[in-house]
């Protein structure tokens, strides 16, 4: 696929689960980067050319919604697509994420098929 993806979650376990699920879904990225919160994610995005961000919402230091706000305020980062991966199912929080520029959401727990369904159509 030749693309670079950034996984943002404060849980190291969840980052590894997402990585495995991407491979099981047949989505083969050139490089998979990781960040533990929104602040780290912004730092990565300012250094690396990333094609897609998968981000949790509930994280310490900077949560997923604050990350979306900061990213959209930065002209250099604004166009990078983001999909939320979250335990949140509420229309209010997901709606807020979409209003801040997220392209979609995947609810935890998820299967590789659900990952494929949401992300596969982006590439």
């Amino acid at each position: 696929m030749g693309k670079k993806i950034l996984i943002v979650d404060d849980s190291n376990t969840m980052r590894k689960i997402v990585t495995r699920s991407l491979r099981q879904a047949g989505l083969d990225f050139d490089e998979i980067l990781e960040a533990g919160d929104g602040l780290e994610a912004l730092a990565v995005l300012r250094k690396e050319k990333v094609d897609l961000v998968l981000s949790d919402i509930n994280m310490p230091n900077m949560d997923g919604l604050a990350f979306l706000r900061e990213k959209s305020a930065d002209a250099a980062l604004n166009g990078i697509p983001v999909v939320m991966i979250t335990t949140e199912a509420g229309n209010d929080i997901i709606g807020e994420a979409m209003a801040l520029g997220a392209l979609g959401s995947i609810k935890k727990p998820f299967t590789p098929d659900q990952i494929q369904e949401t992300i596969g159509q982006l590439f």
Partner: protein
Amino acid sequence: MENLPDKIMSSVHEIFSSMVMMDIVPGAPILGEINPLQNTITGMIGLAGTHKGMLAIHLPESLAKKVTGNFLGMEVEEIDDDVQDAIGELANMLGGSIKAVLTENGKDIKLSMPSTICGKEYQFQSHYEGESVIVPFAAEDSKFLVELRIKQEE
């Protein structure tokens, strides 16, 4: 609050079948307090908002290592940071799943960051008021418990 044991069983089944890939069999809810936990790791998460309380999952260390191994796709030899993180994430997903059945899509309920504790022997006591539900599950020749203490605020 209706059918909390059924909702817990459904949530645990969803997570274990989709992400842990481990067969589980629920048992009858336990009445009263849990005995002191031995060689166990507990993942817990708080709930606040229209419903207040906490949810905990108590797993024997051997089972916690298998769960972590299934999450990560590798053998796990000891209770290390990976296991603590995995069980915390398990509590997080359970919390998200439970809150989604307490209110419409979990609206107006916030989850805390998950925590874990582990040790040779400890007594886990929650001082939350409200309804108490403890459901045992059999898995891999072992057993774990999911405990929910929840009160709907006025």
